[in-house]
């Protein structure tokens, strides 16, 4: 049985590997945790989630960029697979799934990309549908992936109604209670979110993550 200092060292190694965006080192660190009989789920909670918090702070300060979130996400996923393989499947909480995109007739992608990366590195399984996404595509993909959340972005006053369309379509299909819906983007306000009946709103990516976590029942 590993002592506390060995556990701390192994967890720190995993956190460092993620923060260095090093997939191989993250895998090695995760394997050590498994081989030495340390608690894999505690490693996910402390090392992986700890790295995520640091990454998001760095991103907010402009010290790391979108590609770094992608690479850190890859390292987290690789380590996570190894850690999760060491515990019974039923004890692994299912990953919360988000389907995200920019609504129909709107090609703006920057904000949506940032939110997608922040959500992914925040532990969500993210399906990014891109830009100019029709309501039916959002809903079909959410059904296919058994999504928990549909995240709708737009950057034009004139494309805001397409956010509402998704909510209306969900309602008319009897699916409104199947998914939480969050909205964001340049012209979006909390008032608009309320008016169209969205479940949440994010003024920026980190607020979007906090909203998504709250809606998905994940502790902050």
């Amino acid at each position, binding site marked *: 049985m590993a002592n506390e200092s060995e556990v701390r060292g192994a967890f720190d190694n995993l956190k460092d590997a993620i923060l260095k965006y090093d997939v191989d080192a993250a895998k090695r660190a995760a394997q050590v945790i498994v081989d030495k009989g340390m608690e894999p789920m505690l490693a996910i909670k402390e090392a992986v989630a700890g790295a995520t918090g640091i990454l998001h702070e760095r991103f907010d300060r402009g010290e790391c*960029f979108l590609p770094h979130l992608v690479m850190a996400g890859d390292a987290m996923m690789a380590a996570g697979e190894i850690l999760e393989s060491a515990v019974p499947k039923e004890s692994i909480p299912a990953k919360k799934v988000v389907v995200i995109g920019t609504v129909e007739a709107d090609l703006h992608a920057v904000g949506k990309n940032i939110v997608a990366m922040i959500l992914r590195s925040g532990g969500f399984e993210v399906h990014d549908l891109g830009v100019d996404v029709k309501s039916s595509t959002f809903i079909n993909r959410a059904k296919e992936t058994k999504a928990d959340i549909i995240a709708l972005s737009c950057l034009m*006053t*004139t494309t805001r*109604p397409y956010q509402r369309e998704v909510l209306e379509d969900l309602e008319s299909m009897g699916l409104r209670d199947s998914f939480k819906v969050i909205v964001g983007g340049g012209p979006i306000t909390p008032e608009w979110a309320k008016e169209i009946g969205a479940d949440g709103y994010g003024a920026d990516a980190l607020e979007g993550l906090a909203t998504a976590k709250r809606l998905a029942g994940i502790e902050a």
Partner: protein
Amino acid sequence: MLSLLDIAERMQRGPKMDENVWNMGLFQKMNELTERYQLFYPKDAPVFNLDWDIADRAFRAAIDFLVETGIYCASTSRVIQLSEDEVLSTIKGMPKEVTVGEGRDARVLKQRRLEEREQLNHCPGHHAPFTEELAPLVVKNFAQIPTADYLEGINFPEVDGREIFGMPLEVYAAKREATWMRQGVTKAGRPGLAIAYYPINTRASVLIAPIDREAGLRPSDGILLSVLPDVKVEQNLLTAAIVYEEYGGFKLNGNGGGRVGGFAGALGGALIEGIVAVLTGWIVYRDIACWGAISTGAGVDSTKELSLRTLDVWATSVWSQALHRHTNYILFMGAGGRSGPGCENHLLEVASKAVTIPINGANVHITRQSRARMNASQSPLDAEFAYEVATAVMRAGLTRDTASDLVLKIGEKLKGRVPEAPYHDIREFYDLVHHRPLPEFEKAYLKVKEEIASLGLSFE
């Protein structure tokens, strides 16, 4: 020189690539080019770049990017590949100047030389939402600004009292936007003033709908067809570009810059992306002018550290120098800020940006709050103030070297301020009926103008 039809073919036939692969490849290539051409922020860098060589290296890096990586079509998930000869010969085809508008309202847009005293072009207003009952009056007010060379369109959620939702209403709204704009400039006594259509959205049908020699977009008007971030283009915009190329009409790229933190990565990558985005706008859509900057996101934010804002100024100066030294491209730069219009803070932010415009050889673009809000994003006085400051800088004969001090001093005045009054309806601080600021706003304007004058600028 590549034609738009050449581009259209390559959009359909270029190699397929997953968008995520493109994004990460972009990051790697930008890092590689940043190293290859040593595009780093120098220690003890001046506010404006004084080293032509780094500007030339940045331009060369952009050419290498286009030749070695290409341009990504987000509609077809294909890469538009280009040879060096094609890129260079197409760049050589950029016009030196473009006439916009008609009759006595016709104006020539052209590339200004760095630090020179040539008259500035000015697009004072819009690219912001206004409600339909207010729109024609707002347009009239901006058209009344004597220095206006063209106006950009407005955005609005309703047309004839109906929400703009679905393609038929979008097409109808696109036509009405051009009509209202034309009515607005006519009411101001400037019927020939050029209008640049701000698309209701990005469907090809909606982009093309306002074409109408009598009541809508004339061949002497323009349209905004912007390159997407991460060097991506798409087919609706190219479709429109092809139509407008035959009809006439100048085309503008609203995304000519680069942003630190995206898939281009750090400052060097954002700088290269900014140059590539401008070249791509010309190659793929025949955009003849753009507005933009290289940004850490701090450039318009008075709450950010001064050091970050000067980093933006330096990088933007390298970007503009690269484009001026190697192309005929016409640059515009906005002078907006994070604060809402109608207040002292916003005017200081405007001044801080406007100082850099002539030094970078750019023209004055819309002075607007960075996050636009309905009826609340801009006023004619902010736009006129930006133009006044930029002109005063030229009159003072400031150069890249001597303007630095002024940028730093205005930056000091912004230090520690919190953005104020972000969402004031324009009617709360500007009298649109009589085309003048309300007394409190006028007082703030005169105060800020005096403060800026005390730093060495003279206003006429």
